[in-house]
């Protein structure tokens, strides 16, 4: 363990287990809450600046086409139009231009083409040009005046079709990474990866029962209710300000600076409140366009996507084709597990297939395991992250097969998982040995829960599944600024997507020993702090917590020095407790404790302003396992699957604010319900999206779901001062398999294609089996 995590007064061993805290573990009202319930909180499209223009994007109607020419002259001549941009307004990024940014290395040559098409339109909705005008009506008219000469090309959407010889080639110069490939051959396969250990042939030979199945999943969108929106303002001296809805304003700053050819520090970026991201707002779409338009017009430009644009032009997660094979002994020991995963990447490489391959069998301790993954280009928007990227897709398939094989040997599915569960020190399916983990604890809690013990009504079915996500740490910087009255400003750089301002303020208040009411948390702009990686990977309460605790310790260090000076005693004889400095070591008689307010009041005279700061690159994030139990009713006349009861059991390490941990469990589960039962993209024969709106892209509504019960298991993560594990992503990993398993229990039909929407379920009921080829 490096020093980067040693930030707390504790020893990093989760020193709080069972201890009574004043704030940590309570359900305090979030400090930013009133703004959100009164409509005062400002999201991406809520900012108005003087002299502001409206920007709009012209998008390709074709799924695949050469762009021969773009004529913007008529648009530019329209009165009220202040700027028009095309590919000519962005410098190309060199081949192999890859920079570490955010969580992944970024291929800027791909990104510049994704934000605005260059040689080809690669998906319906691909940006071709953009305008800024004095109002929306003129901007829209200007778009209609732009003439684009397209040469329409054949397109391909299905990943298996895209791998075949003769498929339309999306990127002619793509060379598959990870395959034996002769140079110059044209392919849509961007990458092949392989994980595992042992020898699956040996393992299968030992098995008494072997089951092999193929599955398909459809692309699904993160479904954030707030469309992408930003306001960009570039001034005559080449500096700029950007306001946007994002999961990472430092990352957005880096992308925009690169694409516009600016020094990073010339751009000052403020994250608005964000109306949902789930991974979909870790990338930029409108922002480089708005900045380029603003630079041309020298006026602020606001751009906001319509819901239709969100569906047509932003990255969903992959659809996939999956093959899984598992072998077990009659007494329930898994002897071998094998999988081949083919994920859609969209128009540019970068599906999360590697992570899917790693997580596929993570809930099992295996001697022989192999997962192979393919990253495949198709004529769709480049996929973006969606909550535990890659893992939900893979575990849908693997957890379905595990359920089927447990049934085949007559074993209870939770007992089966317990028999094969990994623990600390087990070799994971992707290589490293597991640190302290809570897989067994979640399985046992699920098994012993009232839900699992309650008999089903006739016709209902019950399913379970276990999911896993690594979680990450990353660069994080936080500051505590002491005010002269002893109250504290907590400046954070980790965008708050779901209430982490509360948890982080609570940790600060806990460390300082003061009232939560005295800590005011805020998300600063990019000029306020050192680098902060984006919010994602379930990292904020973990890494943000380490930074905040470190900043509090730094502040306390200074407070003790000031008290020592005030009393004229050695600083080693000062301790900090309950919000005050106390003299120890026999000095106590003459020295009354100094509360924070006293030290703050005199800070000018004792040395000047008092600030606590801490910057880290947090490592050693603790992974989180979750087990879900779900009951379903299936309406045999309509094919509609009703979720009647749902329980999420998941390891949080330590729940700083239990309500927001529960909220993550519930929200992820319901996204999974939508993924399992309704959500998919429907394309016509021209590769155009037919359901680009919430009416026909059906996410769960309030009446679709029951209460989602939650159980917070706490197996502390030793690398965090309070034992925190990230929790945000694991909840979306188990639902699809759990629901599919429940439907199998209810109907006796095993579905192998998502979503299990009413037409598909009804067709399967009528056909008497689960082999339903998709209607489209």
């Amino acid at each position, binding site marked *: 363990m490096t020093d980067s995590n040693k930030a707390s007064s504790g020893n990093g061993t989760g020193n709080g287990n069972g201890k009574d805290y004043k704030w940590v573990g309570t359900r305090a009202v979030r400090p930013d809450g009133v703004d959100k319930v009164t409509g005062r909180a400002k999201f991406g499209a809520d900012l108005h600046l003087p002299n502001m223009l409206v920007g709009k994007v012209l998008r390709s109607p074709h799924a695949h086409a050469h762009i021969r020419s773009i004529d913007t002259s008529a648009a530019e001549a329209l009165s009220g139009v202040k700027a028009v941009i095309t590919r000519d307004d962005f410098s190309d990024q060199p081949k192999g231009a890859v920079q570490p940014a955010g969580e992944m*290395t970024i291929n800027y040559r791909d990104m510049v083409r994704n934000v605005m098409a260059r040689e080809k339109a690669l998906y319906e909705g691909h940006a071709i040009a953009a305008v800024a005008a004095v109002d929306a009506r003129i901007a829209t008219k200007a778009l209609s005046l732009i003439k684009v000469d397209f040469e329409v090309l054949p397109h391909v959407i299905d990943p298996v079709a895209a791998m075949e010889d003769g498929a339309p080639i999306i990127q002619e110069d793509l060379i598959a990474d990870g395959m034996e490939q002769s140079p110059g051959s044209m392919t849509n396969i961007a990458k092949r*990866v392989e994980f595992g250990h042992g020898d699956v042939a040996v393992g299968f030979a030992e098995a008494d029962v072997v089951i092999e199945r193929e599955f398909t999943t459809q692309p699904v969108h993160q479904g954030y209710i707030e469309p992408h929106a930003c306001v960009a303002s570039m001034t005559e001296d080449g500096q700029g300000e950007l306001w946007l809805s994002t999961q990472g304003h430092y990352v957005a700053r880096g992308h925009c600076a690169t694409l516009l050819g600016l020094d990073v520090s010339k751009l000052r970026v403020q994250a608005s409140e964000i109306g949902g991201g789930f991974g979909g707002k870790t990338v930029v779409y409108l922002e480089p366009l708005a900045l380029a338009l603003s630079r041309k017009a020298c006026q602020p430009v606001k751009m906001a996507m319509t819901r239709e644009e969100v569906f047509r032009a932003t990255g969903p997660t992959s659809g996939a084709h999956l093959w899984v094979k598992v072998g077990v002994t009659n007494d329930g020991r898994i002897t071998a597990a094998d999988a081949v995963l083919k994920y859609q990447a969209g128009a540019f490489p970068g599906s999360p297939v590697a992570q899917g391959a790693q997580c596929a069998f993570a809930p099992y301790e295996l001697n022989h395991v192999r997962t192979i993954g393919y990253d495949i280009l198709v004529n769709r928007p480049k996929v973006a992250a969606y909550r*535990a990227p890659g893992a939900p897709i893979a575990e849908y398939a693997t957890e379905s097969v595990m359920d089927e094989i447990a049934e085949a040997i007559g074993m209870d599915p939770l007992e089966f998982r317990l028999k094969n569960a990994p623990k600390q020190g087990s070799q994971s399916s*992707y290589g490293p*040995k597991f640190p302290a983990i809570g897989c067994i604890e979640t399985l046992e809690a699920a098994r012993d829960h009232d839900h699992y013990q309650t008999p089903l009504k006739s016709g209902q079915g019950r399913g379970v599944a276990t999911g896993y996500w690594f979680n*990450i740490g990353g660069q994080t910087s936080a500051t505590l600024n002491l005010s002269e009255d002893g109250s504290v400003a907590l400046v954070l750089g980790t965008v708050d997507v779901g209430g982490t301002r509360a948890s982080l303020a609570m940790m600060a208040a806990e460390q300082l020993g003061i009232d939560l009411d005295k800590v005011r948390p805020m998300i600063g702009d990019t000029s306020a702090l050192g680098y902060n990686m984006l919010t*994602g990977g*379930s990292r904020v309460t973990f890494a943000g917590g380490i930074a905040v605790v470190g900043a509090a310790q730094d502040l306390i260090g200074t407070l003790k020095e000031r008290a020592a000076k005030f009393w004229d005693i050695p600083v080693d004889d000062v301790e900090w407790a309950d919000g005050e400095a106390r003299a120890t070591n026999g000095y106590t008689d003459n020295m009354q404790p100094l509360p924070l307010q006293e030290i703050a009041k005199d800070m000018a005279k004792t040395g000047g302003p008092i600030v606590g700061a801490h910057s880290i690159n947090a490592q*050693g994030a603790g992974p989180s396992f979750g087990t879900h139990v779900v009951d379903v009713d299936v309406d045999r006349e309509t094919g509609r699957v009703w979720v009647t009861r749902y329980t999420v059991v998941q390891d949080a390490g330590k729940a700083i604010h239990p309500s927001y941990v529960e909220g993550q469990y519930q929200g992820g589960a319901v996204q999974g319900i939508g993924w399992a039962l309704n959500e998919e993209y429907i394309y016509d024969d021209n590769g155009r999206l037919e359901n680009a709106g919430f009416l026909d892209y059906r996410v769960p509504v309030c009446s679709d779901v029951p209460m989602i019960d939650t159980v917070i298991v706490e197996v502390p993560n030793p690398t965090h001062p309070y034992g925190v594990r990230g929790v945000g992503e694991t909840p979306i990993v188990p639902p699809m398999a759990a629901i599919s398993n429940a439907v199998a229990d209810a109907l006796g039909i095993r579905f192998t294609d998502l979503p299990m929407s009413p037409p598909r379920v009804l067709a399967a009921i009528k056909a008497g089996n689960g082999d339903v080829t998709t209607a489209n």
Partner: protein
Amino acid sequence: MARIVLTGNLQLHTEGVKELELDVNTIRQLMRQLTTRYPGLPADLEDEVAVSIDGTIYQDDWFAEIAPDSEVHLLPKIGGG
């Protein structure tokens, strides 16, 4: 000598070698030795991988320590959503 295991598709660039032993004390040393020994590996290897040292996962940490008996896995970089 630490035990180094390559996952994903790195072994394609190391003449099929998936496991090896190296005398290295930090991740940066590990990266340098690997890219020197196997020029087929990407020069920016350290930007493309996460490194697990005895089960604890590191990303972008040159100076994380590797003990003489450590088990080290090179994984693809982990990105969340």
